[in-house]
């Protein structure tokens, strides 16, 4: 049997050529894999959901809604929850999305802290940034689909934030949401459904394929010790069987943990919110939008002006401008911190104090703007929040730099000397 297949497909050659490819190993390298596993889980559970979901708001009544008329999309969520393991699979879809965004974010932090975005990997860093943005968009377009009052309100806010983009915003939002969100707009749900289950997953698949192909082509970065063990060579384990086994085990652990979470914490119980009504419930976005929500609460209403027929108001500053600047800044990182020669080895965060402190400062910015999202609950004033958001990241970054200098300062000089002699890839921050 093997011989027959080998004659036709040259499995032996494929094995020798591709499956023996060496993969460097480090526990932080698994973050990207967890992101991929989450995506696979999302596609599989998503297929299950599409088989039972009705993307429509036509009124239906049935035993699951106690004979009351509810939108069909809402009813189909009740139906899915009533299927064997239906609620668990729907929750798994929900939590896998959270894990995917969190893992992608941590993966990005790892790349940033170890300088793995440098020449020749700038392109893959940029694809990675788009992957994160598209993942968040995919999560957002999934919000509305259960079509309960909470989902409806959250999506409505998204519509208005999109519409706050100057000149083209309203048109853009109208195309994305098929017009203004209202209780009687029958086109919104089919439009968001198509984007959520077809277009964004296709875009993500394409980008993930490119991300992996480029990673394989350029070879994975290696931990620093590899340079001492075997300079110029790849130190790692073969794709098959070692790497494949590790990935398989990790996938199973991931699935076990995610399914446990899904079973223990049922996601977004639609009955708790009921079908959409005219009244708006108090909504709080998920954690990956909380920082934007926080910034929106920090900007005084008076910060607005009109220019060439477009309004630049708080919604624009907080909802459009700040996220856009952060995305552009992320895309620019490999060019701001550019390496002329090609890099193969990871850099130690302790040897790149400015970059490390900057990343810690940005994390504090994220935490402080997230805190601003709780402005009303914690009764914080706009002034306090501005002070926290501006001062805390700066001071934390400064403190991180001072601590790094105190602990590793001596090594920096050695690194610099080593560079002058011409050994190793040293600090260039």
């Amino acid at each position, binding site marked *: 049997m093997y011989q027959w297949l080998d004659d036709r497909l040259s499995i032996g050659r494929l094995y020798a050529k591709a499956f023996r490819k060496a993969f460097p190993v480090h526990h932080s390298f698994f973050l990207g894999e967890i992101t991929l596993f989450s995506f696979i889980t999302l596609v599989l559970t998503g297929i299950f959901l599409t088989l039972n979901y009705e993307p429509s708001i036509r009124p239906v009544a049935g035993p699951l809604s106690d004979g009351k008329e509810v939108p069909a999309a809402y009813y189909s969520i009740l139906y899915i929850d009533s299927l064997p393991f239906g609620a668990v699979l729907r929750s798994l879809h929900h939590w896998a999305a959270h894990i995917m965004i969190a893992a992608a974010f941590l993966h990005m932090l790892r790349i940033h802290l170890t300088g793995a975005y440098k020449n020749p990997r700038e392109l893959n860093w940029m694809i990675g940034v788009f992957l994160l943005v598209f993942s968040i968009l995919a999560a957002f377009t999934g919000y509305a689909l259960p079509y309960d009052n909470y989902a409806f*309100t959250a999506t*409505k*806010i998204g*519509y*208005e*934030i999109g*519409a*706050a983009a100057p000149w083209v*915003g*309203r*048109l853009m939002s*109208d*195309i994305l949401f*098929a*017009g*203004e*969100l*209202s*209780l*009687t707009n029958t*086109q919104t749900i089919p*439009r968001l459904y198509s984007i959520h289950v077809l277009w964004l997953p296709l875009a993500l698949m394409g980008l993930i394929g490119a991300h992996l192909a480029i990673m394989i082509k350029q070879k994975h970065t290696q931990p620093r010790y590899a340079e001492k063990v075997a300079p110029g060579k790849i130190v790692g384990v073969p794709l098959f069987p070692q790497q494949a086994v590790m990935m398989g085990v990790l996938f199973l652990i991931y699935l076990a943990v995610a399914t446990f979470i899904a079973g223990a914490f049922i996601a977004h119980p639609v009955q708790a919110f009921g079908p959409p*009504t*005219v*009244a*708006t*419930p*108090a*909504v709080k976005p998920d954690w990956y939008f909380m920082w934007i*929500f926080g910034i*929106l*609460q920090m*900007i*005084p*209403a008076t910060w*607005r002006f009109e220019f060439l027929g477009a*309004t630049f*108001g*708080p*919604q*624009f500053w*907080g909802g459009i401008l700040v996220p856009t600047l952060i995305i552009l800044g992320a895309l620019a990182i490999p060019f701001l911190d550019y390496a002329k020669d090609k890099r193969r080895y990871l850099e130690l965060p302790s040897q790149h104090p400015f970059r490390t402190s900057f990343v810690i400062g940005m994390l504090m910015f994220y935490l402080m703007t997230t805190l601003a999202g709780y*402005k*009303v609950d914690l009764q914080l004033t706009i002034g306090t929040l501005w002070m926290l958001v501006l001062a805390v990241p700066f001071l934390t970054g400064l403190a991180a730099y001072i601590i790094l200098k105190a602990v590793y300062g001596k090594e920096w000089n050695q690194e610099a000397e080593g560079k002058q002699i011409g050994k190793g890839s040293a600090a260039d921050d």
Partner: protein
Amino acid sequence: MADHEAKAHHHDHPEDPQAHATRRAVLQAAIGVGAGAAVLSTLWVGAGLVPRVEKVPSKEPVAVGDTLVFAMGAKADQEITLDDLRAAQGAALPFIIAFPKSPENVIKKDLRNNTLMVILADPARMSPETRQHASPEGVLAYSAICKHLGCTVSQWINNNWVCPCHGGVYDIHNQARVLAGPVPAPVPQLPVRVEGGRVVVAGEFLGEPGADV
């Protein structure tokens, strides 16, 4: 490989370089026109994604002479009476979310900016401008669509009218002046009067309703 063939081909059929250039220009023009037509037709089809605006009676804006009806709840679609407003006064939510109903009995609920709030308040506490557009009994109406991001302002916390989405607070006694939150402008007041116990629209919105983006 391709290079070799091209050269061999050239040797076999010595051609006028001018004819080559012309052929290339024609092919390039054809490709350009084809690509352009493809892009244009894609845009033409894509333009169908822009939603159509349909004119139906239920999407007409609020007009003078409309009565106000309950937008939701047990009494949904029924006309709001002074008694209803009096009953609400002591409740946790002292106001009522309302839609306008035209004299032809069409409830205009399909235009979001027709979402209104109506409340019975104390005329003595109102600013003069507010009182001017309220009924003598103290019935006040505002657009209920938050000027910030278009949520329905539907909460009542500490005797204030609050938008649940981003914490905008409006002063109902003073033309919905913004007391707190990221709201860019007050929601417009809608002049109302009471006729035979029912709440009737007495004038146009005093400003632009809907999210201000």
